[in-house]
């Protein structure tokens, strides 16, 4: 596989994320597939931010430790990454701030002064220098800048990029790949677009990393996508507004992280009892409590599986990349309406804020699903009993239907009851919906595998660890099994998939092995846990070494 890894580092506020996406743009234009990991502390100015952009001639979704080019705005960006620098690494640094460092020094303050350019254009100098080092033509460099820099700032950026280009020399040559230039999106963006594909009309959220960018993205494109985007006073209001929208017939989704989801749980339980559809994008980050706000984890699996008082069905899916985030977000929303249940799309910081090449043409969307609506005949009863447990929906404002929706135990018409027989029937109806949902999901790819059966070694993983596992397992000759749907757990599909699994390892970004626990609860052996809980995702090489120990 032809592949390149570039690290760009500096202080918060220097536009490292944007610069990383511009670097991704250089390689995308040459037909490469991109994965970008963005690492930043929870502060606005200062500290140390870095992005690792990995480009390869095939699909990827994880980074590696060593880098080919390191672009450093300051000394920290070199010293913090010693382990990534090897004999073949080209270092380019800002000579005005990291004088005396190895590699090429760009006198950025001099360049900016001479070109009368603002400090942020320093990124363009680095981009220009990278293009030269990597043998990427000036036409491609200019095209990237033209598409990413606003018109009025373009001339200054072009001049500065040219200076960076001229200050270094060619070190290697990135050969173009015969593949289309794909757009690079984040997991948040793919999930948001997937929700719209599934029929989203309104998105409601209160900002919280790592899903704030989903709120920003949809708010920025509300007009383009013909949706409403609402930011109310807190997460309690968020989910209640979404339930109000849905009660009145509008398809709504919300987004949050663990702390916000804590506040949403009473609304979640209301959705379960009152049978109001709602879709929740739950981006995990390390806890407990405030934890490490801008880093990653897979620590809320059991929280989302059991959040909310009482017993009610829910759909939980954990996509592992953009394609899964897009297709399953659409499906999650449609399932929530078909079964009148809460759907939870469980992401994490790695997926939500990581950037990946996105090939919308190559997607196979799941089938469209329609909610069961009142046919207009007879007196409407909101909770009329059916075999599937799903009662036809009607919305207020429609002639002849009085829609009585209730958080209390209720009868068929929606009136509060404490009658033991009616209460039991209501609970049975809720559970029947869960069974109907599980039956429908039998036709979906709820458990995915990569690599040949009979490898004698199986790596289990979920969510954003998918691609690190695929690459590491490939190098080790192991097979990967990824459960996408975690509720209702696809027992049958899992059983089938794990026949002849051989030695099993279960890779997770948490300290206690949450998927392993779920598998044990379902009666399956999760093998040996391979855990990482420092807030960072596995690098491919790091995971390969850990798995090597397990399978030794």
């Amino acid at each position, binding site marked *: 596989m032809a592949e390149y890894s570039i690290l760009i580092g500096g202080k918060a506020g220097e536009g490292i994320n944007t610069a990383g996406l511009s670097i991704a743009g250089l390689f995308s234009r040459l037909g490469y597939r991109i994965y970008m990991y963005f690492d930043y502390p929870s502060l606005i100015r200062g500290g140390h931010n870095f992005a690792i952009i990995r480009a390869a001639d095939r699909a990827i979704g994880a980074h590696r430790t060593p880098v080919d080019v390191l672009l450093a705005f300051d000394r920290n960006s070199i010293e913090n990454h010693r382990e990534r620098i090897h004999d073949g690494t080209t270092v380019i640094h800002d000579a005005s701030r990291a004088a005396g460092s190895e590699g090429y020094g760009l006198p950025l303050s001099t360049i900016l002064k001479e070109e009368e350019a603002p400090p942020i254009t320093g990124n363009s100098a680095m981009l220009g220098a990278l293009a030269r080092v990597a043998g990427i033509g000036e036409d491609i460099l200019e095209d990237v800048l033209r598409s990413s820099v606003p018109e009025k700032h373009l001339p200054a950026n072009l001049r500065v990029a040219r200076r960076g280009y001229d200050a270094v020399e060619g070190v290697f040559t990135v050969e173009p790949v015969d593949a289309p230039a794909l757009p690079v999106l984040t997991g948040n963006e793919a999930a948001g677009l997937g929700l719209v594909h599934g029929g989203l009309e309104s998105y409601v959220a209160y900002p919280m990393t790592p899903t704030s960018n989903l709120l920003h993205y949809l708010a920025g494109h509300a007009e383009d996508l013909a949706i409403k985007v609402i930011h109310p006073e807190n997460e309690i*209001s968020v989910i*209640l507004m*979404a339930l109000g929208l849905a009660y009145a017939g509008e398809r709504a989704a919300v987004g949050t992280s663990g702390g916000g989801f804590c506040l949403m749980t009473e609304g979640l339980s209301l959705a379960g009892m009152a049978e109001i559809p709602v879709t929740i994008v739950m981006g995990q980050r390390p806890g407990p409590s405030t934890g490490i706000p801008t880093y990653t984890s897979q620590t809320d699996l059991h929280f989302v599986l059991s959040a909310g008082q009482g017993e009610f069905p829910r759909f939980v899916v954990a996509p592992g990349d953009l394609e899964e985030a897009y297709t399953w977000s659409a499906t999650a929303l449609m399932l929530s309406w078909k079964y009148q249940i809460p759907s939870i799309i469980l992401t994490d910081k790695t997926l939500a804020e990581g950037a990946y090449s996105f090939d919308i043409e190559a997607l196979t969307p799941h089938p469209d699903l329609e909610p069961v609506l009142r046919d207009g005949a007879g007196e409407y009863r909101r909770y009329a009993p059916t075999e599937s447990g799903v009662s036809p929906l009607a919305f207020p*404002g429609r002639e002849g239907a*009085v829609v009585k929706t209730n958080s209390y135990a209720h009868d068929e018409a929606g009136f509060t009851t404490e009658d033991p027989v009616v209460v039991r029937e209501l609970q049975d109806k809720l559970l029947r919906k869960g069974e109907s949902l599980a039956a429908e999901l039998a036709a979906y790819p709820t458990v995915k595998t990569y690599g040949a059966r009979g490898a004698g070694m199986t790596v289990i993983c979920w969510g954003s660890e998918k691609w690190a596992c695929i690459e590491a397992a490939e190098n080790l000759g192991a097979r990967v099994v990824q459960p996408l749907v975690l509720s209702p757990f696809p027992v049958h599909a899992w059983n089938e998939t794990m026949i002849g699994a051989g030695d099993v390892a279960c890779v997770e970004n948490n300290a206690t092995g949450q998927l392993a626990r779920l598998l044990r609860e379902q009666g399956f052996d999760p093998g040996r846990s391979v855990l990482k809980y420092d807030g960072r995702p596995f690098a491919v090489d790091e995971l390969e070494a850990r798995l090597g120990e397990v399978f030794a």
Partner: protein
Amino acid sequence: MTPAKPAGTLISTAANTWCPGCGNFSIQHMMKSAIAELSEEEGIPIENFVLLGGIGCHGKLVDYLNVNSLYGIHGRSIPAATGIRLANPDLKVICHVGDGDIYAEGLDHLIFAAKRNSDITVVVHDNRVYGLTTGQYTPTSPTGFRGRSTPGGITEHPMNPLEVMLAAGATYIARGYTGKIRHLKDLFKEAIMHRGFSFVDVLQICATYFNLTDYYNAHTYELQEGDVETGGFESAFGKIREWDYDRDAPIALGTFYSVKKPIYEEHFPVFAAGRVDRRALVRKVVDGRR
């Protein structure tokens, strides 16, 4: 449009479980009449009314009326009401809430709905005591109130919810009393027809835990023309502060404040349901990123 229904048919078949003499009966029947009359006078179809209930004795009202309802959770009716109104601008959305429900558990939502001038109506069943949980103090209980959780009497002062609402930006503020039912019905009609956030604090008798009938009968009076300039903040503020829910003072009933301001919901575009091909829009957005 369905013809307006006589008020009697708006009573549901659900068995009523309020205590004898409960002030909720007055609110229920006056809301029923207000809806029936507005339907007839303004041509609003009955199916365009939506009631929300919180948790407490007040919430049962939504079971007792044959009108669309979302019987929700404690303190959270208001954001759901805004959601409903956002989804369908034709709906008249009315929140029945309790004083514990909305002044304690859900105060944030009340303030923010007023702040954004959400086009909904909030009717507070303010009996100044928790009934369903059997007699604890609420945010409007007077100082010294002895409840089951505060047997020595509370040391804090009650909040004046009208003052809070005026400060928060409510565009319609009124007070009613369950002992003056015709007046109450007129306030409900006025509040429902107000375009913007309308708030009615109803002094409600709790026959079991806090029966203030004699006190209210002795102290309440109906605002007359000229008592308050309802378009003026300062005038309303002064009248609202005449009684602070604590000390003995005349208790004014009626509309204190009523002004027109742009409503929250009108800032969102209304999309014709099912008419927009959003998948084509998604494709366009993705293509724009190439």
